[in-house]
């Protein structure tokens, strides 16, 4: 397998498991997750809060908070297993070939360093031969691309002199500054105003599309995924319960959880119809029910299989996959 034949996917995740081993027990935050990200592709990773999306994203770049640990599986970045890389090799990839944008723009920038310093050091960490002058120009251009007015002046400003939306634009500029091949965006717009949210999301999408950058967009907003992504992965309790092309999965959801999430989204065609929330909430990691972890909240759960055996992944006809003993074979096609 050659490393750069254009066919090797950017990222192949196989059987990824990230556990939090604590005194109270083992929290399986990511449990047997597999998916493939091709060059330039955009995947939306959705699920309720606590379903393991962030830990998945952090696992991909080897930055899981302690006591979390990747205990199994492979993360093949262009064919190389990231989980087996030496720390120095991993460092060289991070921020250069693969980068991440975190959720809260108010805390992700260092308060005592200027924006310029924080952008420039990202370039110099990977390209030490670049002159500081050139790195600064690059930083200024990235800020400009992200729609920050007077980028040259704003380089010398500090995070507290930026608004939340502007800080997130800086964080995005920082993630994109070295032209990565893969970007993980962990709910980067959730903390922002609704209007700014979709604006920034679309800008990031366009930037990635133009640069051919693959993107994993983590969110709990199905509408955003529908507008942004090529593929979707729906996550629940550490597992991907359904995945496939966005139009396939959202056009014909087969997993009750996917369907439940969709029914909870307000939409123009359903105006006046009461939104139905999925009953109950995500159970705590250390108290996950046996069998299918979704069964206490699932209207299709039976008394045997669903309670006893965790559903294996089975293929959808359209190339996707799902984990359910009783898929919704003929669910109504939802107009989007």
């Amino acid at each position, binding site marked *: 397998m050659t490393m750069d034949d254009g066919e090797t996917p950017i990222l192949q995740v196989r059987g990824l498991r990230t556990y939090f081993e604590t005194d109270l027990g083992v929290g399986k935050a990511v449990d047997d997750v597999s998916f493939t990200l091709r060059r330039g592709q955009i995947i939306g990773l959705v699920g309720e809060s606590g379903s393991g999306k962030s830990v998945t994203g952090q696992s991909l770049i080897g930055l899981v908070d302690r006591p979390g640990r990747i205990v199994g599986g492979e993360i093949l970045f262009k064919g190389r297993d990231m989980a087996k890389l030496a720390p120095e090799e991993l460092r*060289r*990839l991070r921020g250069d070939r693969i980068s991440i944008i975190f959720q809260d723009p108010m805390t992700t*920038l*260092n*308060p*005592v360093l200027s924006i310029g310093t924080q952008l420039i050091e*990202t370039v110099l960490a990977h390209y030490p031969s670049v002159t500081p002058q050139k790195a600064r120009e690059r930083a200024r251009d990235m800020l400009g691309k992200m729609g920050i007015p007077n980028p040259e002046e704003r380089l010398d400003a500090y995070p507290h002199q930026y608004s939340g939306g502007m800080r997130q634009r800086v964080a995005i500029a920082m993630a994109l500054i070295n032209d990565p091949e893969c970007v993980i965006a962990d709910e980067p717009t959730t903390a922002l105003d609704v209007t700014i949210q979709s604006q920034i999301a679309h800008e990031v999408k366009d930037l990635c599309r133009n640069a051919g950058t693959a993107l994993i967009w983590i969110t709990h907003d199905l509408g955003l995924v529908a507008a942004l992504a090529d593929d979707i992965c729906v996550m629940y309790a550490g597992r991907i319960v359904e995945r496939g092309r966005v139009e396939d999965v959202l056009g014909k959801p087969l997993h009750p959880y996917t369907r439940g999430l969709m029914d909870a989204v307000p939409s123009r065609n359903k105006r006046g119809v009461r939104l139905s929330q999925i009953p109950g909430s995500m159970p705590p990691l250390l108290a996950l029910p046996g069998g299918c972890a979704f069964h206490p909240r699932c209207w299709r759960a039976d008394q045997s299989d669903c309670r006893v055996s965790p559903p294996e992944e089975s293929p959808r006809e359209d190339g996707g996959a799902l984990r359910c003993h009783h898929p919704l074979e003929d669910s109504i096609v939802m107009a989007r």
Partner: protein
Amino acid sequence: MIAFVLQRLIQSIAIVIAMSIIVFVGVTVVGNPVDMLISPEVSQADRERIIRSFGLDLPIHQQYFVFALSVLRGEFGQSFVFGESAIKLIVQRMPATLELATTALLISIIIGLPLGVRAGLKPDSIASRLTMSFSILGFSLPTFWIGIMLMMLFAVVLGWLPATGRGPTVLFLGVEVSFLTWDGLRHLILPATTLALLKVSLVIRLARAGTLEVVHQDYIRTARAKGLKNDRIVFVHVLKNIMIPIVTIIGLEFGQLIAFSIVTETIFSWPGMGKLIVDSIRMLDRPIIVAYLMIIVVLITGINFIVDIIYAILDPRIRHEATK
């Protein structure tokens, strides 16, 4: 930034004025100088003459202005004991104290900061645990005991270092210092180490607590996600953040080192201000006590002023807050 500096300068001056009033009230009103100055056997006429010559017949606020004026001129009168200008006596002793305090401060930073940061980065390592045990020891042992023990060991038993005195001094930038000669340096080691020990413990604790907190901040995770080298993360991203509280406390401690070097100077017969003031208090040498108090007030206020400026340089939020 200029507005900030000016604002702090005005505050500092206000503090010095307030403190001068307190010192004045303390030595003039609380302890009646008439009783202290004039022996009971003196005749009534002489008594009134002396009172007048010291201006003690004036109303209290006028007395203060006379006092303030003389302070501004640096005139605190003659020492009763030495018969020399009080301020001159103190200024002569100041370099010795400042040298001792500065050396102690440098020792505590040079040793404390790396140990503390390390302990914060690797809290579970054996070296970190040892560091913390040492700092508890440093905190709980009284300075005079440490001083005497060090003196016993290194000066009396081993005979490696001189027990007392300052040793030879040389003129450096117009100030008498001892660290530039080998013998002077040897004299400096024991008292400076004694004075530094408690501060080392303090710096270790501050640096460790700061590091422990900062490494869990989101911006450190961002720094890792950017692929920065570990050295850059520790020496720029972590250090710059933990230095903000450390500089504040170290500044305050520096004032304390100067004001309370008394114990160490007494043990090691270090010819600094601390030893002078102890002698002066014993002899009720009022001009020296007043001059000493005012100099300490100015010194500590000056240090706090400088700390505020460094603080603003380190923390852009403070800098901009003040200029707004």
